[in-house]
C-alpha cells in the first residue's frame, strides 16, 4: 500500500510535467490548428539556457524567471518568423515546418552544448519528505507544486484578464475578433510565447530527473502527445488531467506489470495514443471535429 501511494504521487509529479507540455501543445493547437512537434525541443532549449544562466552564477529562481522571459520571447519570435508564412498552408506543410524546427533546435543544442549528458540542479532539498509511513521525493512534490502554480496562473490569466479574453476570442472566431479590434495575428504569437513558457517550466522540472541532453524531451513529448490525445486536443483542462492520468498509469504499469517494466515505456504511450484515437478520437473531454463540406 505504501509503495502504491508513493508510486501514485511520483506519477502525479511526472504527470504534471506531461500535463504542462500537453497544455502547451493544446494552447497552440487551439489557436493555430498546428500540432507543434517542436514543443519538446523548445522546452529542451530553454532548459539549456537556464543551465547556462545558473552556471553563470545566478541564483536558481532568478535564472528560472529569466528563462521564462526568454522562452516567452523566443516562442513569440518563432511564431512570427517561422510559422506565420505557412499559417494557411496544407497540414503537410505545417507538419514539415514543425519537424524542421525540431531538428534545428535539437542540432543547435547539440552543436553548442554537445551531446554529453549534464546534471541539472533541483531547487528542492534532496532529503525525502516523510508523511506517516510513506516517503515522498522532495523534488516530486516541488515539481508538482510548481506545475500547479503555473497552471493556476494560466487559468486566472485566460479567465480574468482582458488579454486572456482577447486570446480566447481570437482562437474561437478570428474574423469576428478582428472586427472587434483584436489583433488576431499577435494574439496567436502571444499564444506561442505562453506555450513556450509553459514548456520551459516543464523542461526545468524534468531535467533534474532525466538529466540534460539534447534528446531528453523525445520520450516526454510522446507522453505529452498521449496526454493531449487522452484529454482531447480541444480541451486545455482535459490535457492537464490527461497528463496526470498518463503519469500515474505509466508509473503503476511500470511497477506492477512485470513484462512491461521500464523497457517498453514508450510503447505504452504509443498504445494509449492508438487506443484513444481508435475508440474516441476526440479524447475524454474534447469536442468532436466538425467539417463544413
Amino acid at each position, binding site marked *: 500500500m505504501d509503495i502504491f501511494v508513493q508510486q501514485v504521487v511520483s506519477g502525479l509529479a511526472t504527470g504534471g510535467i506531461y500535463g504542462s507540455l500537453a497544455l502547451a501543445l493544446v494552447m497552440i493547437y487551439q489557436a493555430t490548428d498546428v*500540432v507543434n512537434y517542436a514543443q519538446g525541443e523548445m522546452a529542451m532549449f530553454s532548459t539549456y539556457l537556464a543551465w547556462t544562466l545558473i552556471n553563470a552564477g545566478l541564483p536558481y529562481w532568478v535564472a528560472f524567471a529569466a528563462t521564462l522571459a526568454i522562452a516567452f520571447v523566443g516562442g513569440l519570435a518563432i511564431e512570427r518568423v517561422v510559422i506565420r508564412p505557412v499559417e494557411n498552408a496544407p497540414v503537410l506543410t505545417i507538419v514539415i515546418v514543425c519537424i524542421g524546427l*525540431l531538428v534545428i533546435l535539437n*542540432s543547435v543544442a547539440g552543436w553548442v552544448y554537445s551531446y554529453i549528458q549534464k546534471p541539472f540542479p533541483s531547487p528542492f532539498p534532496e532529503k525525502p519528505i516523510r508523511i506517516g509511513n510513506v516517503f515522498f521525493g522532495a523534488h516530486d512534490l516541488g515539481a508538482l507544486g510548481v506545475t500547479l502554480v503555473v497552471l493556476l496562473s494560466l487559468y486566472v490569466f485566460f479567465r480574468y484578464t482582458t488579454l486572456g479574453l482577447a486570446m480566447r476570442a481570437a482562437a474561437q472566431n478570428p474574423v469576428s475578433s478582428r472586427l472587434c479590434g483584436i489583433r488576431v495575428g499577435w494574439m496567436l504569437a502571444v499564444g506561442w510565447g505562453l506555450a513556450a513558457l509553459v514548456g520551459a517550466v516543464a523542461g526545468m522540472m524534468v531535467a533534474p530527473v532525466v538529466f540534460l541532453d539534447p534528446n531528453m524531451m523525445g520520450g516526454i513529448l*510522446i507522453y505529452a502527445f498521449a496526454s493531449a490525445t487522452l484529454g482531447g486536443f480541444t480541451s486545455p483542462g482535459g490535457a492537464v488531467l490527461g497528463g496526470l492520468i498518463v503519469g500515474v498509469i505509466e508509473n503503476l504499469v511500470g511497477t506492477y506489470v512485470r513484462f512491461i517494466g521500464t523497457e517498453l515505456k514508450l*510503447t505504452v504511450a*504509443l498504445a494509449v495514443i492508438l487506443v484513444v484515437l481508435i475508440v474516441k478520437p476526440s479524447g475524454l473531454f474534447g469536442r468532436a471535429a466538425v467539417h463544413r463540406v
Partner: protein
Amino acid sequence: MSGAGLRRAVVLAAVVVACVLPFVLSNFRLFQFTQVFIYAIALLGLNILTGFNGQISLGHGAFYAVGAYTTAIMIDKWNVPYGWTIPVAGLLCLVVGFLFGIPALRLEGLYLALATFALALAIPQILKYFEHWTGGSQGIVLSKPRAPFGLTLNPDQWLYFVTLGVLLVLFVLAANLLSRRTGRAIVAIRDNPIAAQAMGVNNALYKSLTFGVSAAYTGVAGALSAVAIAFVAPDTFNVFLSITFLVGIVIGGLASISGAVFGALFIQFVPNWAQDISKAAPWAIYGIFLITFMYAMPRGIAGSLRLVLGRLARLSGGTRRVA
C-alpha cells in the same frame, strides 16, 4: 524533342551511367551508391503514401526496421538465402502496413502524423524487447553475399547490381501504378476525399492498400539495407531515420517518382559533407532545408527541374504559347 521523349532519354542515360559506375568507382563509393538506391526505394514508398495519397507518415523508419529485421532473422536463424528474404520482407510489410492503415483511416492528417511519430519513437524499444529474436541492443551480424554463377564481381559490385535491379523493377511498377486508374484514385483521395468518394472511389480500401504498398516498398528497402550493411541494430532505426525519409521526399519532390532519387542522393551525400563541420551540422542543414524548401520550392528538386525542362522544351520547339 517533346517533354515525354526528353524525360525518357534522361532516364535511359541515367540507367546507362548507373551500369558503368561499378567499374570506375572505388568499393567505398560504390557502397554509398548502393545506399542511395536503397534510400530511393524507401523514399518512393513514403512518397506514394504522403506525396500522392496525402497520408502523413512520420514513422516509416518502423517499416524499414521490420523489413531489415525480417531479412536478418531469416538469414540468421533459418539460413534462408538472402534473395528469398527480400520478397518475404516486402510481403510482411505489405500486411503490417495494411493493418496499420486500417486504424489510420479514422485519423486525419495531424492525428495520423502523431500516431506514426509515436510509432517511430517506440520502435527501437520494441526491437530491444524481443531480444530472443532480434539480439537485443547488440543486433544481428550477417555476412556479405558473394556474386553467384561464377560472375567476376566483388561483393560490393554484386550488391550494387542487385539493388539497382530491384530499384528499376519497383520504379517501373510504381510508375505504372500511379499513372493509371489506381493512381488517379490515390491522388483524388488526397485532393478531395469527399469528391473522390462521390465519384465511386472506395476511399477506405484505397487508403489502407496505399499504406500497405508504401510499407512494402520501405520494407524491401530495409531488407536490402540489412543485406548491404550486413548488420542490424535497434538504435539505427530511431525517430531520426523516419525524419530523414521525410527530409528526402520533401527535398526530392513530393508526389514525384524521380524525386525519390534526388532525395536519396541528398540524404546520402549531404550529411557526409556536413559531418566535417560538426556532428550536429547535418541535422541543422536538414532542418534549414526542410523549412526553406517548404517556403521556396514546395515541389522539391524534381518539381523545379520539371519546370525548367518544360520551359526549355517549349523554347527549343519554337511553339511559344502564352501560358
